[in-house]
């Protein structure tokens, strides 16, 4: 038994969870447990109170909203993987999910848990950033909508007050037939990405890029939205030369070095993955 001692709470409603978060000393929320449990086992975190939100009804759903997808924070990654609605409306999310851990971890892991854990290499985080998602945080004062661009504050630090929990994710949809691509480089299947790229792309009948979203994961302390790359693409005619030139901008990102890769290698991967993702996204555009 490796986890440190803690008091265990299993609220049945979001309101009850918020009350526990605001009143208990040093609490930690337990969602799917695929990150918190290892951190407890390694004693990276020593919470006095663990609040298990698995027994709260109504936080696990996938539904279509107003030109958007609405996903409950406690929706299991497996349910996203097998959702026909997501495969049809937002294939980038499905493609990203297939790179998340393994079947055993996706059966338990939740999208909300991953977003709040906010590992810079996390696939769901990257898809939400590329998709201009909005997340809903619920606290004592009620609900607060947070554009996903404003959600990562620093390395693994979400824009949540200590007494707030993430309850929902809203992802605006692109036109059916848009291009998409999620590519990552990892040492083994299911490992954390050394670098990853998520791309959404749309072109008109003449091949002119109407919309582009490019995001990089695993490269820096927080996932990056590549505004400069997007600005270089939109309004131009899609071509391999343009993609190569735009992707080269990724070499300038402030990358991090660790045991897996140097700064220069991550910058190189960022450029290569971005170029390949743009090419694949373009090939997937249908009128």
């Amino acid at each position, binding site marked *: *038994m490796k986890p440190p001692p803690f008091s265990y709470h299993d609220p049945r409603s979001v309101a009850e969870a918020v009350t526990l978060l605001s009143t208990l000393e040093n609490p930690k929320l337990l969602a799917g*447990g695929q990150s918190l*449990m290892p951190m407890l086992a390694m004693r990276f975190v020593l919470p006095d109170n663990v609040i*298990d939100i698995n027994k709260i009804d109504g936080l696990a759903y996938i539904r279509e909203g107003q030109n958007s997808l609405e996903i409950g924070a406690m929706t299991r990654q*497996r349910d996203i993987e097998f959702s026909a609605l997501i495969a049809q409306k937002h294939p980038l999310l499905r493609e990203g999910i297939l790179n998340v851990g393994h079947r055993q*971890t996706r059966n338990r892991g939740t999208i909300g848990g991953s977003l709040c854990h906010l590992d810079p290499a996390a696939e769901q985080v990257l898809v939400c950033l590329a998709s201009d998602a909005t997340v809903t945080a619920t606290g004592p004062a009620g609900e607060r909508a947070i554009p996903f661009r404003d959600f990562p504050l620093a390395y693994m630090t979400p824009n949540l007050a200590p007494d707030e929990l993430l309850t929902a994710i809203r992802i605006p949809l692109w036109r059916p037939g848009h291009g998409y691509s999620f590519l990552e480089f990892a040492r083994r299947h299911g490992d954390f990405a050394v670098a990853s790229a998520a791309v959404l792309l749309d072109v008109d009948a003449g091949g002119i890029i109407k919309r582009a979203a490019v995001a990089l994961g695993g490269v820096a302390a927080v996932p990056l939205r590549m505004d400069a790359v997007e600005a270089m693409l939109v309004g131009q005619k899609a071509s391999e030369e343009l993609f190569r030139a735009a992707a080269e901008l990724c070499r300038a990102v402030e990358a991090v070095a660790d045991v897996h890769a140097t700064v220069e290698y991550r910058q190189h991967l960022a450029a290569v993955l971005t170029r390949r993702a743009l090419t694949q996204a373009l090939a997937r555009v249908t009128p």
Partner: protein
Amino acid sequence: METRKIAVTVNGQPQTREVETRLTLADFLRHDLGLTGTHIGCEHGVCGACTILLDGRTARSCLTLAVQADGHAIDTVEGIAPNPTDKSAPMHPLQEAFRDNHALQCGFCTPGMLTTIIELLRDNPEPTGDEVRIAISGNLCRCTGYQPIVAATLDAAKRLKAEGRKP
């Protein structure tokens, strides 16, 4: 020490125990129920040896608290054979295929491999070799090598199909 009473169904048998709230499901199965078929390797969700089926879906029992299993059904490697208490009774076709294809040497990873592959074959009764490799990507084997495990899985899929059985 904080404890709670939990009621679970393990391999079809109802079980009630008082457990410490920080006890992992893996330790609960091994120490409280004596079901040592579930192996513990890394204890932080990397090796896959402790994989069990929680309500029919694989989960790493080292990443689940015993208290979270309250009210749920768990299947361990001990429950895979149709008649696990009778040693002369036939094993599950997947277990037979593992034996015939030399898919285990030391056997440490085997319980996690078997539970993982049972779920794979339920989801996808005729997987390709690549699909098997992806399915077992979360299970580390340090001695047998993955090739015989992939071969055994493909063989088991054939046997199940021939027998008209569900895994």
